[in-house]
Structure formats: structure tokens, C-alpha cells
């Protein structure tokens, strides 16, 4: 699946998008997997209460299942307007 990062999450990880092959069942499982990769991922995902997630462009919760999802995006709370 495509995993996208925005704002400081993108800066901390150092890339805007990557293709991730995973068998993670939920968003939280995917986060755990990414955290274990490298320090920059661990830093970006240190506090998930400071993050939001969207599945196929719809806001979701961290316990949401990933089955059938093609695009996951992680970002800080939005600051539009």
C-alpha cells in the first residue's frame, strides 16, 4: 500500500510517500512496524496522540482495520482556514 506523510511527519521521516508491504491488521499495528524500522520513524511516531490518520483519504482511528485499504496517510492535526 501507499503510505503518505505530511507536514512535520514528512520532514521527520524524510520522504513524502513510500510503498509499504505489510501484513499489519490495523493502523496501530502498522505504526508499530514502522516504529521498529529506524530512529527517524520511531521519532515521528513517538506520540500517536499528536498524529491523525486517513485511510483512502478519509479520517480514521488508529484501531481501524487495514484490509482493502490502498492509501494510508499520517499527519499532524490539520491547521487550515
Amino acid at each position, binding site marked *: 500500500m501507499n503510505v*503518505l506523510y*505530511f*507536514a*512535520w511527519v*514528512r520532514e521527520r521521516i524524510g520522504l513524502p510517500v513510500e510503498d509499504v508491504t505489510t501484513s499489519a491488521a490495523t493502523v496501530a499495528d502498522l505504526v508499530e512496524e514502522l516504529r521498529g524500522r529506524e530512529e527517524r520513524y520511531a521519532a515521528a511516531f513517538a506520540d500517536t496522540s499528536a498524529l491523525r490518520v*486517513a485511510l483512502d*483519504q*478519509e*479520517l480514521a482511528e488508529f484501531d481501524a482495520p487495514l484490509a482493502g485499504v490502498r*492509501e494510508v*496517510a499520517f*499527519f*499532524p*492535526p*490539520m*491547521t*487550515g*482556514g
Partner: protein
Amino acid sequence: MIRVQAMPFDAGGELNRFAAEVDGAGAVVSFTGVVRDVAGGLEAMEIEHYPAMTEKALGAIRAQAVQRWDLADALVIHRFGRLEPGEGIMMVATAARHRRDAFEAAEFLMDYLKSRAPFWKKEITRDGAAWVASKADDEAALGRW
């Protein structure tokens, strides 16, 4: 109508066009958000967004407003990219038969745009760059709807 663009917009011209195109509206309300200066002197504001999600999210917010209030039409324009102090960031306009619907729907649109549309602001000052943090007040503002 929803527009997401890098280009500046002319708030007055947009409002006049919007008002001219709605029929039977006795009330037109608009709000324009402008890049303001910050302590330390703002050089620019950079707005990042999530293109695939932005129009979807804005469309859903607009649809909710149109469903909830008796609106003739609603316009949302939001910019992204690099903006200078004094430039317009975004605008909303609502048209309704009566002013209460137009005012309330415009405030609803603003509150939801702040916390539910995928935009992130970064302030560039002489001292460096910093992402604007979301405010608890902005999230709390959604509670009144």
C-alpha cells in the same frame, strides 16, 4: 463551489460573482482569512495540503452545510503554497434567503475548515521555520455544531 489553488484570488471579485449568480438570496455572508504578521516578523507562510483528500474533504464539509442550513449556494476557496503577509489564504461565502442561515453556515464552514480539511501551515520568520500547532479551541469549536 470548491476551489483549491496556489494562485492568489480577488476576494471582492469572487464575492461579486458569487452574489450575482445566486437566485432568491436575501443574504450573502463572506469571510476572508489573511496571512497576519507574527512576533519575530513573518517572511512567508507555506501551506501544504493532501491533494487527493482536500477536495473530497472540502466537498463533504460544504455538503453538510448545504444540507443543514437553507442555503442557495456556498463557495469555498483555499490556497496552498507560499504566501506573503497580507495575502488572502482562503475565503468562504454563503447565500441564503435569510441572514441567520448565511451567518451560521459560514461559521460552520470556517470551524470545519480549520480542523477537518487537510492543510498544514508553516510560518517562516527570520529566526527559522515552524509548523503552526493546532489549538484545542479549534477542536472544541466543532462541539457547538
